[in-house]
Each structure stands twice: as structure tokens, then as C-alpha cells.
């Protein structure tokens, strides 16, 4: 029997019908057409499906779609404002921090949450926070640099 779920995605009201055993990831992708969130494993091991659920970083493949009822979900599609990229998005491009790009939405969502909690992380803190996101192309070097540079830029901007 399908469930009717009312939730909020990226600041907008959203509703969908889903199966009781359907994941939030599948609902985002297949019910709401938000395919920016990726499935790499379906078991919470790769972080490609990272979203923010009520201020908490989660793997959307490990959350039931029905659990989104009455809550708010933030996905990669909610980051840029119109044609204006966030500092993190910009720094990922400038540092060539992506090759194939399939892990990129998950990294950006995770890194944004890190910088919301800690505006001046060390390299080690960045590496441990992002340890739940797998990237097979870059060896992480340029990703870590992009996040550190974005943090610096955002701090300078905040103090300016």
C-alpha cells in the first residue's frame, strides 16, 4: 500500500506517494526527479547519496522515504542560488576537485555541513569528516584543498 508523504525539499513543500520499504534516495530520484543525489552502493558505504535531513548529514539510501514526513531535506539541487554557485561549488571547480563528478554532489553536501559546524577545520578534520564519502578518481588531494580553500574564503568574506 502506497504511503502519502508531505515534506520539505530545499525550502519548497513537496509531496509524493511511496512504498513503505522505499528509501528516501529512491523517492528523491524517482518520485521527485531530483537525480543529483546519486546511488553508489545502497548500503551507506559510499556517501554518494548524502543529504541533510533536519540539519543532520545522512545517507539517503539508509533513510526510509516515509521518514521524511514533516521534516526538511536539503540536497545538492538546493545549493546554488539561481546561477550563483556557493563558495564550495566554485572552489571544487577552481581546484579541479572532480574528475568523473559522480561523487561530487555527496562531497559538496557533506563538506557544506562540515563548514556550517566548523568554519576553520584542519586538514585532518576535513579528511575524517569526509571519510564517509568515496571518490575513486581524484585520490582526494584536490578535494581536501578545495574544502580548505573554501573555508578560508568564507571566513575572510564573513569578516570583511
Amino acid at each position: 500500500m502506497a504511503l502519502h508523504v508531505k515534506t520539505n525539499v530545499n525550502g519548497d513543500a513537496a509531496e509524493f506517494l511511496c512504498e513503505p520499504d522505499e528509501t528516501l534516495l529512491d523517492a528523491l530520484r524517482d518520485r521527485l526527479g531530483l537525480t543529483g543525489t546519486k546511488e553508489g552502493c545502497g548500503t551507506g558505504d559510499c556517501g554518494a547519496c548524502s543529504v541533510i535531513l533536519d540539519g543532520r548529514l545522512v545517507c539517503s539510501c539508509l533513510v526510509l522515504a516515509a521518514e521524511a514526513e514533516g521534516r526538511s531535506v536539503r540536497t545538492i539541487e538546493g545549493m546554488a542560488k539561481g546561477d550563483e554557485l556557493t563558495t564550495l561549488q566554485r572552489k571544487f571547480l577552481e581546484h579541479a576537485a572532480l574528475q568523473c563528478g559522480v561523487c561530487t554532489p555527496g562531497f559538496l553536501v557533506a563538506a557544506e555541513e562540515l563548514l556550517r559546524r566548523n568554519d576553520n577545520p584542519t586538514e585532518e578534520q576535513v579528511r575524517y569528516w569526509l571519510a564517509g564519502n568515496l571518490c575513486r578518481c581524484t585520490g582526494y588531494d584536490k578535494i581536501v584543498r578545495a574544502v580548505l580553500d573554501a573555508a578560508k574564503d568564507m571566513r575572510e568574506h564573513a569578516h570583511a
Partner: protein
Amino acid sequence: MPKDIATRTFKQVGTRPLRPDGIEKVTGRARFGADFSMPGMLTGRILRSPHAHARILKIDTSAAEALPGVKAVVTARDFPETDDGLHDIRMNVMAREKALYDGHAVAAVAAVSPAVAKEALKLIRVDYEVLPHVTDVDEAMKPSAPVLHQHIFTANESPAAKRPSNVAGKYEFGHGDPEAGFRKADHVIARSFKVEAAHQGYIEPHACVANVTADGQGDLWCCTQGHFMVRAISAGLNGMDLSKLRVTASEIGGGFGGKTTVYIEPVAVALSRKAGKPVKIVMTRDEVFRATGPTHSASIDVKIGATKDGRITGAFAELRYQGGAFPGSLADMGAMAAFACYDLENVRTIGWDVVTNRPKLAAYRAPSAPAICFAVESVIDELARTIGMDPIDFRLKNAAREGTLSSYGPTYQAIGLEATLRALKAHPHYKAPLKPGQGRGVACGFWFNFGGQTCVSLNIGLDGTVALSVGTPDIGGSRASMSLMVAEELGIPYEKVRCIIADTASLGYNDVTDGSRVTFSTGLATIQAARNAIKVMCARAAATWGIPEDAVEWVDGHARPTGPNAGNFEPLSLADIAAQSHQTGGPIAGHCEVTAEGAGVSFGAHLADVEVDRETGAVKVLRYTVAQDAGKAVHPAYVEGQYQGGAVQGIGWALNEEYIYGHDGRLQNAGFLDYRIPVCSDLPMIDTLILEIPNPGHPYGVRGVGETPIVPPMATIGNAIAAATGVRMTHAPMSPPRILKALTENQAGT
């Protein structure tokens, strides 16, 4: 070598502009394999064998077909056997008489929802007769081993094989007499090694959507490294005309060689045709591990002799590679690559191609080379230590250079091995102090690189912008490199160029994106296409001015008279010529169709510091530096990215990644939790040194850079572990249990 390569100054090639597909990828709008959907689309799913080796007695699909919502079921019967050279891939796509490995596809369904498709798989009844299996390469070579195929008789064996076996072929390379060489040596070291299989580990599972009609026309949308290859095999297996199946490559979420073949695409085509509706198939991660990739596993013997002053006198290697259930373990390439770094008088290598009950090997970045590099470079390291020579000096003393007769046949042109070794030696990393318990290792590696069939089309827009269509999927930023080469050649800004990956109906045939070939061969074709367009534009300017075509030259994005004698005319820009093209002869385009030769071999050398935890056996990589010859780095940021990414894949294989099989022949670790690829917190920054020794075979001197970086890490890490602990690891990955065992045995022995 064209004279201008070494001295040419570039205006745009060598800069680091933003990639053209970047914004789509940081905003989640880029469409990867699983992101494409069609109205009325069905979900396809595949039933897979739970047995490593089993005869398929009967498949009863009637209950699945009767389930409401099921629209099509296919089995091997839907892919009839014909004499078309696609025998092995047909058998791999759908098992016929036998299931040959855990995960081998046996049937597939298309249904109205994922839930119905899943339910339908449970209703398919397969009667198996379970057969004895073999998954280890050395076991598979024994006369007593269960034989997978009755039609495999060892190729190239003398006398000719009389009985079928799991050994598909024997391959030999080399020159001189290694035994005579060993007699001249002061020190000879012989060691045996094992390397377990790894998976490419791309984050995006295989995915496709097929929309095919009963008359054999249709479209296929998929993530692949080569959509022309997908078309050939999918059309071939379904009896369709090539031109009636249009394949479009989606954005690709990593491949590393693993997407140079097909698994689900011909199945989706068959299901779509049968159901009369579009069908989407997306693999689960479990399916990716059990049925796609992986690499060979290897068992290797290496013997090298050297004089006490450090000259290698003889070298021998025997490689036994299993490549899963079908021939093609690439032992031949491993045997060719084994001693490619060295200038040797006496060298011989033998490669054995072996089949086992494992998934069919797919290429993985310099396929075959990392395992043999681990073996050879470990023995090289041990020899240098035995002689008491610096390991870089020992390699430099024996390094291949321009004019060296390689161990696999060709004589090298200009190559960069010595330059990379010298660059490492001069790097501060090489002299940095180490603490107790830490060790430093070095190793060098080689890859052939590849050119291949390439076709591009470059169209000049009426507004002076340029659209470039290429047929090689972009797996690491190649659209940026192509755009840079167009901008350089035409003399227009990078932003005025847009490069797309054209579908199979819009462009001539292209080989797959593999062999580090794209920046080299698609780049070469792109430059030629731009030059062809320049010829047209110069002719248009000449006609406009009423002067001969050869009195016009192209400089900085403009046609201009070659000199005062040619006439006094204001230069015409590309945009000027484009705007008037409707009056001067119509559209302007440049094309190139070529089989690119002269890819230019690639060498790199790596340096690593590690710390070994003697209680847990865990190895921490503290510092890592990659030096590699790029010929010419078109977009240096993405060259660095290849060095870093390849090195880290190699580090993963060196320390953790392996296929683990149970006694039942089933894969024990088919997920990212148990097949652990490196994560961010495992690693340091990866320093890179880009050397540029121009490749004479490319107009800008470009060499492919993608594959070589995965070759040296296993050996580099192994050598660093030996330096840190005094223990030589001969079985990779050098995971904590293996390190602990080796440390314990070493302690017991001393």
C-alpha cells in the same frame, strides 16, 4: 620529430581553465547512467547464478511470466549462437549450458516496477547441477583441476596441447640468454609473488535505458567508455543492423577500464524489443562486484642477476594470470611490460593465460602491469640493497633510454624514465628525515599507451564560436583538453569552444576511451580537424581578396596575407569569415578520420614513506610523490589528477583491496564495506612532478598519462615496508593480517 614540438610556445595549452562540464557536475544536473528515464519505462533486473560452476539443466520462467506486471523475460535462448566472433561475450552476458562464476547472469525480466521485477526473479526456477570449481590460478593450472571449457587447448604450446585445460595460452618475449646472464652476475635473486584481484571500484554502477522496437530500430543510453563498442556488441547479440541502433554515452561516473565492455546493455535491448517498451537496468553494487570487472589475480616468479657494481646481467619472469571464466587474462601484456623499464642484454618473460570460475576480467588502468611491477621492482629493490647501492642510482644505471631495445620488441624513441628518476632524486622528499619504524620506498613503472581509430568533427558557427564533436566518452576532463587544443590551433578563446560527445549515428567509428588514448589520439584528430578548417577559412579569405590560397596564412585567429607581396588586406578574423560564409561557399567545418599511431610509451617513478604498526599490521602512508612524463601537459590540473587518482588506486590495491573467495567459490566481500577502497582519512596529499619529454608522435608532444600512475604504487609501498621492517612482502595486498603474519614469521626465524 617535428622541429617545433620541443621549442614551441603555447598560448592556451598548459593553462588551467575551468572544465566545460563543471557547473553541471557541482549542481547535480549532469546526467549519469542511472539519471535518464523515459515515459512508460519498465524496470529490468537480472537473475544471477549463486554457484561458482554449475550445469544449467533447465530454466522455467513460466511463473515469472504469469506474474501481473511482468512484460518480458529473456534467457540465453533470446541470444542465439551465431558464428560472429562474439562467442565469449554472448556467454558472459547470459549463461548458456553452464554458469561459470558466482554472479553469472542466467535470466532477466522487465516489469512495471522494481518491486514486481524483484518478485519475478524469485519465481524463475533454475535447475542446476553443481560442478567442482576452481578460483585460484595455480590450482586451475594443475592437471587435476576442474576444466571450465572443453574447447580450450593451450595456444602456442609446443608440442601442441592434446587435452583441453584451463590454460588458454602461453606467451614469450625477450632477447639474449638470461641463463648466461645469471652466470655473469655477482648476485642473483629469485622470488615468487602472489597478487590478488582488485575491482576498478567506480562509484557509479552500470546503468542503461534501451528503447527498441520489434523491427530492430532503437536507442540505447548508457554509461560507457565506448558507445561504438556498446553498439557493435548490443546490435550483434540481438541480430540488429549497426546503423539502426543509436547509442548515446551518458556522463560516466568512473570507469578505469571497467566500462570498456558490456554486461546489461544487450539484455536491456532484448527486453525492450520483447516488451515493446523502454527498459532501464541499473546494477546494484553487489552485482557490480560479483559480475563485472575485476582484474586478474597473479602468481609470479622473478629472477634477476646483477654485478656488484650494479649492472643487471640477466632477467627472467614467469607470469601466471587468471582472468576469470574466459581467456584474456592479459598475461601476455604483463609479460611484455615486465622489464620495460630496463636496458637489458639478456631478458625473457613467459606469460600464462588461465581461466577460473571468477567473473570475466575487465581492463583496469594499465591492465596487467601493477602485479608484475610489484614482483620485478621488489626484486630490483632487494638487489640494490644487497649490492649496497642507492635504489634510484641502481635503476638509473640500468634504465631504458632513447635507442634501448625493449624487452618486448620495439626500440624506444625519446622517453622520460631517466628524467623522472632524476626528478625524484632531486626532490626534497628523497632527503627528508625518517623516524624509527618508518621506511621509504621507490619504484618505477611503464605503460604502452594506445592510439587507435578516431573520428572528430569540428563545426565553425556563424557567430565565430566552434562546436567540436568527439566520439570518446570523457572520463576525466578530456572535453577541457580538447577545447584547449582547438583554442590553441584556431587562435580563439577557450570559452568560444564547446566540445560534446556525439552519439553513434552522428559521427564515424571511434575506439573506446582506453589505453590512455584520448588526449593523445582524439587530441591529434582534433588538431588535424582544426587545421583542415583553417585551410577552408584561408581559402575563403583568398577568394574574398582575389589572391592565391597559398598567399594566405593563419596567425592568431586571423587569415592574413603572407607578406606585402601577397597584397595589402586587413586580416579577417575567424568570426569575420564565419559571418560571411553563406556568401563564400557555405558552412565551414573540419573533419578528421584517423588510426592514430605513435602514442608514445609512458614512464613514471613513485616515492613513498610509510609507518608500520607492529601490533596491528596496519600501514600508514605518510608521504607520497609521483613523477611522470606527460610529453606535454595540456591541462596540468587534470594531469595531476590522473597521477594522484592512479597512485591512490594503487595504494588501495597495495594495502587493502582484494577479491576474497570462500571454499564454496562465492565472493565473500561484494560491497564497499568489506572491499575497502582508500578513504580520505587514509591518505596524505599526493605530490606530483610533471615532466615533459615531448612525444614525437603527437603535434604538441602529448603522451597519454592515465594508466602509468597505478603501476608503481604496489611496489613502492612494498619497498617502503621492507625498509621500515626489514621484511619483504611477497603477497599483495599487504593487508594487516598478511603484514602481521610476515612480521611474526620473521621474528620466529631470527
